[in-house]
């Protein structure tokens, strides 16, 4: 009973802070991050990569081109997201699947794609800089969330990646409030040991 009470109190108490903390990174936040070319089919050419949000990657891989312009499904590369707790990082082979033939339209693309090919030939996997990083003590089964929210679920946490030239953290996924809020809205379990074990 005390437990329930505690949560009720929590709700009341946190209401004030909620706006600041809990909703700080709700899905709505993601849209604001979208690039101007909101619904244009073609991703913009980008000269000044320095101004882009998010960490600089060894290869300037553009989700906005792959997922946005060419409408490649997330799961084409993140192959295990619907069946496993882990989304899966595409192997170099997956990249080469296309880039054996596709060598890029403009010069900037060409240089980047060359990097991929070099890496492949050198048998040296590219070391991507991790953007989304959930604390090790929280278990997030991707497949359950895809199952519950459908394949478009990705944006809920990762934001409109399909419009990000360079992926950045749309939501603070490490913020437990971010998870809890969603679980509250959808009336799904808030049992600690669902994620923490």
């Amino acid at each position, binding site marked *: 009973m005390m437990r329930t009470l505690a949560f009720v109190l929590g709700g009341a108490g946190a209401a004030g802070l909620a706006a600041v903390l809990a909703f700080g990174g709700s899905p709505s936040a993601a849209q604001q991050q979208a690039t101007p070319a909101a619904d244009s089919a073609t991703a913009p050419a980008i000269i000044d990569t320095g101004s882009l949000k998010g*960490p600089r990657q060894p290869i300037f891989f553009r989700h906005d081109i792959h997922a946005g312009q060419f409408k490649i499904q997330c799961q084409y590369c993140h192959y295990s997201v619907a069946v496993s707790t882990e989304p899966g*990082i595409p192997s170099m082979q997956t990249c080469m699947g296309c880039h054996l033939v596709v060598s890029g339209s403009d010069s900037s693309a060409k240089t980047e794609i060359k990097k991929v090919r070099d890496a492949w030939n050198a048998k040296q996997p590219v070391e991507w800089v991790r953007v989304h990083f959930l604390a090790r003590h929280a278990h997030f089964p*991707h497949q359950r969330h895809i199952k519950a929210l459908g394949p478009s679920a990705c944006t809920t946490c990762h934001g409109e990646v399909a419009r990000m030239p360079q992926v950045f953290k749309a939501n603070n996924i490490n913020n437990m409030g971010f998870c809890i809020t969603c679980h509250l809205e959808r009336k799904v379990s808030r049992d600690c040991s669902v994620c923490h074990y």
Partner: protein
Amino acid sequence: MSDVSPESGMDRRKFLTVLGASGGGALALSGCSTSRVEKLVPYLVQSEDQIPGVATWYASTCTECAAGCGVHVRTREGRAVKLEGNPEHPVNRGKLCSRGQASLQGLYNPGRVKAPMARGADGRLAEITWDDAIARLAGKLTAAGGKVAVLSGAGRGTFSELLADWTSALGGRLDRWEPFDHEPLRAANRQVFGLDQLPAHDFAGAKYILSFGADFLETWLSPTENQRGFAEAHGFAGGDVAKFVHVGPRRDLTGLNADEWMAVRPGTEAAVALAIANVVAAARGAPAALAGALGNYTPAMAAQETGIPAERIERIAREFAAARPSLAVAGGVGAQHAGATELCAAVNLLNYVAGNVGRTVRFGADLAAGDGFRGLTQLGTAMDDGQVAVLLVHEANPVYALPKAAGFAARLKKVPFKVAISPFLDETAALCDLLLPPHHALERWDDAAPRAGVRSLMQPVMEPVFDTRAAGDILLATAKKAGGALAKFSATTWEAHLRGRWQALAAERKEADADAFWRAALQRGGVFDEPPAPVEVSLAPTAAQVSYTRPAFEGNGAYVFAAYPHAMLHDGRGANKPWLLEVADPVTKITWNSWVEVGPEAARALNVRNGEILRLTSPHGSLEAPAYIHPGLHPDVVAMPLGFGHTEYGAFAQGRGVNALDLLGAPAGEFVAYLSTRVAVEKTGGYRKLASIEGTPRQLGRGIAEAIPLAAARQGLTVAEAYLEEGHGEHEVNTPLEVAALKGWSEKQFQMTRKGDYRRDLPQWGMAIDLARCTGCQACVTACYAENNIPTVGEYDILKGREMTWIRIERYWEGSEAPDAPPSARFVPMLCQHCANAPCEPVCPVYAAYHTADGLNGQVYNRCVGTRYCANNCPYKVRYFNWYKYNEIAWPEPLQLQLNPDVTVRARGVMEKCTFCIQRIRGAQNTARLEDRPIRDGEFTTACAQACPSDAIVFGNIADPDSRVVAIKQNPRGYRVLEDLNTRSAITYLAKVLHPVEG
């Protein structure tokens, strides 16, 4: 294989980064450390059978002992993380002992040799390249001109065939040897049945089991298989229960499971065996020849030899004769003294006259074993005579495993060039000139033929951890290099050679499609035919030459010295694996160090207490170790476990304890007699606290490990009823009024906690543990360590009672310590009881300990602040605290690769405990949800239940009336520990079933 990128493959760094990508728990709970720049390193080529976050299982074979159990290896992101039994394997049927599971720590052992090494001019071992190493070996072999000797550990399969061909091609000699090679057993089989082989023993079928010292639950022949059978025969299923009598001077784990113990004088087991055989023969009408041979061995004579009353021997003999079929086995210390062959022969006759041969003793199974000690003796002579120019030692460690007096080390020095194919720098390897590290069993292709009708496969489940090669490849590469007689080995790689062998096998078996045959075998873990029908055996002419000679022991000390194989470390090969060191010895519950066992009488005579250091002096040497008073020891005997006192063999093993072999003389004859000397025992005045996990080994009538008489169990009485039956007083002293009041109160008090989520229609997880089946072997404990990333805290912290055994086996002594009525033992697995009304939950100020909706006592590590109130308030004392940063010190490189990514590694300062393997529960829920179905009963189980060789632990959903666990919980023998505390624990224990005590 996780990664088919050509050479480099998956190095350790890549493991970790991929692991990082998989977000698994294999890193410390160090808060939300997002600031760190984490790298995601993709596979070059994603292999089909590895999905990040999803475990891939490979079938393989355990190589820790000759039994050859089948294993399933669980791999995650290209790392082997757990070993479990292969349910399809006829030897172990899905179960695995502690030593088998710890094979994982052999794979990731920090003490492994990381690359080939050669002794340089400075006399030190230095790393060299493989090409260089192979060249050196090849050169020496060609130069040796046939003066080559190979010493290999036991084990039978394609590799040993190759090794044999390879050696003979060189014109050298091959000896396959490992300690405890059952030489007396085979000698006796030759003598009595004319068969030089080891039979299979059907414990399950036996109605009466008589063991002459055989530790068949620990190391004897095929322990896991034996235990499964024993639990079948000795467990209670409503009907009859086989009686088990242990004959021998010491009660080991097997002995503690006996219903009756005949504490005979050391070395006199044979007299009992013959006397019983005599009586049985009379009762059953045996062939005249035998009757004559046995005639002289009367119970009276045996009584005189053993110190056991003749009536008692007679009674047991009659009981044995009455039970059909029965089973008598000989082994352990019983079969490790000068008269061992006599004993085994006697036991053979006993089985024969009792009509067990062909029923519970099945010849034709032909269990794998080495060539025995004789070969080693001959090798020794050859080395002395300079007949050996090159000695190749493959996974054998005679320098450690033979008594110093045998002088193998000295002989080794006489060999000009010594090569060791050994994964570790053990005592023997340390003396070699060339060190070739082979693949671990989990890294290589291989097969094993542990017995007739079973040929099981090994496959690489991951890229090698270090720069090692399959032993087969080493032989083939050397052959290619050396050419000459060795040129005939055409196979390019060991894998190809093995495949070739299996193609031949397919042909023998008239398989249409060899590849399909191979694939199927690979999937199942091998080819398993129906066990061959027992071959008809008849008495050999020499059968009647049974005899008994009164044992004579070297020296004139007051006590006979018994060195026995450690249940965890076996002959010492386990001493470099922290799990086996930390998971206590099942009898004494001592960890990490040696001890000397003395009987209660001896202890009184010597005026010695636990931990006081004793000096043992034999004609061959002297050593010191702290005393442990073992109520199950004959007054004339002091006993010591083998396996300690390594001088090499890695940081974990080195300089830990003393080697009991130092007291033994040079083995003479067919085998090493581990029970051959007398020792003088004296107190040194020193004291070293025993690193024991034992607190107070008495129940003080608190009903923790309950037991009821067989008769009562048959009537279906509850424990309480059985007590009344026996004329004990009423358990509950409260008046009816009080009882009523308490009942109402306790129910109300319980309901107070059942608010909120708890009414929802969710599974409620629970467990049932049958103490009539549990033997106390501790396979469950090791499994728990493996599954839940439990740190091994080491000797210092265990001295402070800080072991982390989420599940522990408590061993309570029952009865007096009077010589005439030795105490019996009761084993009870104690783990978190997941109380529905848990004392630990309300006292936690931060809800780190709380009740989950599916009936678990949740423990949220990352919420825990470490007030430790929960542990104080836990009546079962099953909560464990991280006193130090165990997460940083318990897994030295590369041991951390064994960690289960599904389980958070607990940081310093937090409480941890059994969670009913919640990661498995959540995993099953995820799968079930994807398939839109509820979880099926038995779909998954906890690590302890999965491992238990006697199937004593059953886990399931107690909210589902059809589940197996519910069925078992309804058993009248069922009881809950400390039920009066109204904790409503989710674990029901079934009381042990006792045979009536007679005589």
